[in-house]
């Protein structure tokens, strides 16, 4: 697994290198560059911070300081199915924290972590703008409103079944060839 991540990271770094040159070497571009990396790869690998520092000719600690200051940037790859639990004000007063806890318990990871098989990750977010549906959780791109602890299990189960189905389909397709 670790091996796999390392080769993956090497590819990511190459990609980042090729995109860096589209930015002018200005301090004001630091955040846009970090955003570019975050958006293309969903996290900022450790080595990428060095790359950016070299490119903008500023100390690594400056880049790291900025990257860690802002909530948008992550330093670990998220899961294939990132789960975001809203803990905005409306969701908090409707017990969003209990929903979060249920996901944590079922997936056996904490908020901010990714499952060892890199399938799921859990994150907390502030208001996603549908407070009327509170409490809210987002899996992938889909917003699930009126969440309840008992819905958590069903939701995860559905994703797992869906995935198994896809894998079976893949098998039959390759089997047919």
């Amino acid at each position: 697994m670790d091996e796999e991540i390392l080769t993956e990271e090497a590819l990511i770094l190459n990609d980042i290198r090729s995109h860096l040159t589209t930015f002018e070497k200005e301090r004001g571009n630091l955040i846009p560059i970090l955003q570019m990396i975050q958006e293309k790869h969903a996290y900022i690998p450790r080595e990428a911070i060095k790359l950016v520092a070299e490119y903008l000719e500023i100390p690594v600690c400056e880049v790291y300081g900025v990257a860690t200051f802002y909530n948008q940037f992550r330093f670990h790859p998220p899961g294939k199915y990132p789960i975001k639990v809203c803990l905005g004000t409306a969701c908090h007063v409707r017990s969003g924290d209990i929903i979060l806890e249920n996901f944590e318990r079922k997936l056996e990871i904490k908020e901010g972590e990714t499952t060892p098989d890199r399938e799921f990750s859990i994150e907390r977010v502030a208001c996603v703008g549908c407070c009327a549906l509170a409490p809210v959780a987002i899996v992938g791109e889909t917003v699930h409103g009126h969440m309840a602890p008992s819905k958590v299990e069903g939701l995860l189960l559905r994703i797992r079944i869906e995935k198994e189905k896809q894998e079976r389909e893949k098998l039959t397709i390759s089997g047919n060839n």
Partner: protein
Amino acid sequence: MTEEIHQLFNAIREEAEKRRNAFREAPVPKIHIGMATCGIASGAIETKKAFEEALAEQNIEAQIHTVGCVGHCYAEPIVIIDHPASGFPPVFYHEVTAGKAKMLTKLFLAEGDPRFEHVYGATEENELIPSVMEFPRFNQEKRVVMEKCGRIDPEDIYDYIAESGYSSLVKALQLKPEEIIREVQESGLRGRGGAGFPTGRKWELARQARGENKIIICNADEGDPGAYMDRTILESNPHQVLEGMILCAYAVGAGNATVYVRAEYPLAVKTVTRAIQQAKELRLLGKGILGTDFDLEINVFRGSGAFVCGEETALIQSIEGHRGTPQHRPPYPVERGLRGQPTVINNVKTLASVPQILNHGAAWYRSIGTESSPGTAIFSVVGSVVHPGLVEIPMGVTLRTLIFDICGGIPNKKKFKAVQIGGPSGGCLPADFLDTPIDFDSLTEAGAMMGSGGMVVMDEDSCVVDVSRYFLDFTQKESCGKCTFCRVGTYHLLSILERLTKGEGKEGDLEQLENLSLDIKNGSLCGLGKTAPNPVLTSLRYFRDEYEAHVSEKRCPGKICRALTAFYIDLDKCARGCDICGGCCPVDAVFSTKNRKKAIDQTRCVKCGECKVACPPDYQAVKKVSPPSLAPFIERPPKI
């Protein structure tokens, strides 16, 4: 000059009207679907798809018009169907799921039956269907900033122009910059970013400041975790904000402008970026605006999600590529801001008010709202109300009208307990303050503040200590760390509050909360630290008995703090053999006791309350109590 402006703009307006008339007069039904974030979250994309499929299947011709958000978030996905051939007026439908969309296509569009049981109201007066304007949620609002939100397609600049968009720009270009500033000053417009600084005064200072490259920044950082009006405005009507920015730039003499919007708002970023492009294509933006020698470039900077970056000097730091730490003022940004240039920073709502002011005049604006706070206020009202969503009201309306009339009051026959206004910087007001008029000064006087416009309504089943803890948890994490009192002080405040909610409060804790709060207010540089203790201070002032119950009785009056509550099953009410509670318990805490009745294993229970919801209403056997010692102890039989 004047002639050229008119010539250029008239051509644009004619095109807009041509398109509008073609759309209006097309002899087919029109389906308007709200597609801002809230609509999409409630399934508007599926709804739209269902309409498209059903129309194709049944060979019906109709036009789908995607619009922004009208603010009635409780009713999303919202669809308005205008089907003149049916003889009915345009009909407003709420919660239109994909299934409902298919049904309406068949029954209303094809067969002419509007299905009265699903109708919310008609959008205009008529004899057949009651109009939505009869509901307080519609007729007590006053739309100035959000007037066009939900009515026009935010992706189409012509839709905005057809509704007299950009006409105040035409007007302004024929005035002297000073005349615009005077108009804004006379209107009494105050900044909607929280502090309420007079906008005309800010612009005048920027106009007088010396600098070659003055800059305008539209602050759409919106860091309050419970407010989303700025995003909605950008998603539903970006051109009104852009027009406000152009007017501001013309008035102060700036050539560059930036919209600072959160990266977490991808749809808003996309909508504004497209709007800028469209405005440039029509020469309403860019080089030589409408043939004059006035140039303005607007770009978008995506904020990376730090609450403190809503503060103007921190915002500037972050655009310059640094950590967002506030700087000492003076110099104020209007003297020396971004890259050392005079910089005007205004909130989205402030800027979006300006085109309306120039269009209708300062006197008109002053006629709305109160003497010291003219205009409207926008709140995102959430929590325990029947109709949550975005509400735009004239300043001066009381909290009672807003909560009980416009938003429909508290659901489930619960009692009102408190309202939290202004998000992490605001305060918590009890029922005695319901008759307070909503304006900058009255709210501040009561201990809350306008702030971001977040409003959380709490019923009797909520805990003010927990809400204070929630906001402190937020500000503590978001403190940039520059000032010791803010960095360390909020940490200590939070740890005391955490102790209280866990039932570990000590005597003297409340006094320490108060003292520490005052120290943090005094010892912090920026508004974040200066206002962070507000939720604690106001709730301590008005709900001290609740704090005391947490400390001395280890009791949470709202039964919210989980360490201070317990669930148990009333054996007299439990129906034997019904397994619903056991089935839904996520941690297997429910077990069978005598006569197959159920009981809860307190050592396992995580207090999610799922069993209480699941227990059939006929039994209502699950009880919630605080303190936990009130729950009778029933031993779990060993597993066989």
